[in-house]
């Protein structure tokens, strides 16, 4: 298994490096024969597993957490403390279930916050209707 798996894995990492969300290119619902096994694996891979992908260097910046980020962290930890999710469920939702575009496109704590709302709906602590109405109400308070 080793040599062919290594070859496949290294080719895979090269391919997913090309899968940056591309707003300029339409790829809506390709025909099945346009997706081979390698492309299928690239598309369905978990977006958090970026180790080894070719990419351009990014600038490292020290940045202090903002208040909403600290609040988000505390909220998510409380959800864990009260048994609403485990850390692994949280990571799945915020790093993988969001998909490649949101994973790369949203701020780190933006994904935490989005996921805190998502788990409450998924596990029926609140309905999406209640959530949407609350967001709408809060938005109107701040116009």
């Amino acid at each position, binding site marked *: *298994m*080793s*040599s*062919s*798996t*290594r070859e*496949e*894995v*290294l080719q*895979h*990492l090269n391919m997913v490096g090309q899968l940056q969300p591309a707003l300029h290119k339409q790829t809506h619902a390709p025909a099945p024969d346009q997706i081979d096994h390698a492309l299928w*694996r690239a598309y*369905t*891979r*978990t977006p958090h*597993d970026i*180790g*080894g992908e070719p990419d351009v260097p990014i600038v490292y910046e020290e940045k202090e957490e903002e208040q909403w980020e600290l609040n988000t962290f505390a909220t998510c930890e409380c959800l864990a*403390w*009260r*048994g*609403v999710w*485990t850390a*692994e*469920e949280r*990571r*799945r939702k915020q790093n*993988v279930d969001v998909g490649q575009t949101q994973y790369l496109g949203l701020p780190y704590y933006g994904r935490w916050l989005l996921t805190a709302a998502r788990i409450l709906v998924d*596990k*029926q602590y609140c309905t999406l209707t209640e959530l949407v109405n609350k967001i709408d109400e809060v938005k109107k308070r701040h116009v």
Partner: protein
Amino acid sequence: MSKPHYDREHHAKMASGIGDPQCFKGKAGKAKFKEGDRVRIIDLPDLFYTRTMTYTRGAVGTVVRLVYESPAAEDEAFGNEDSPEWFYSVVFKQKDLWPEYSDLYANDSLETEFPERYLESA
């Protein structure tokens, strides 16, 4: 039609006052590998969730430690905690992971953890 009901806090009840992964101690059975064993990482389908980095798959490393018993990420991420397994810390030579890694740093290594399902004897 009634909604599905399940115990949303079952994991919290299990771990309260004990900790996680301590609450899974003694529940994984006999460990298949021991310190010093050479192992190859199995390339299981990476669908929906995994924490076994793709770049380790198919590579050979050495078990340096049995770290704890826990459900694998694939189970725990969906609230399934019934099948804990042994986790192993495995060390690889960087050269075995990255073909282009410089010979100048031939001694560089990388250590990371895997649930038992991903290991086979090498």
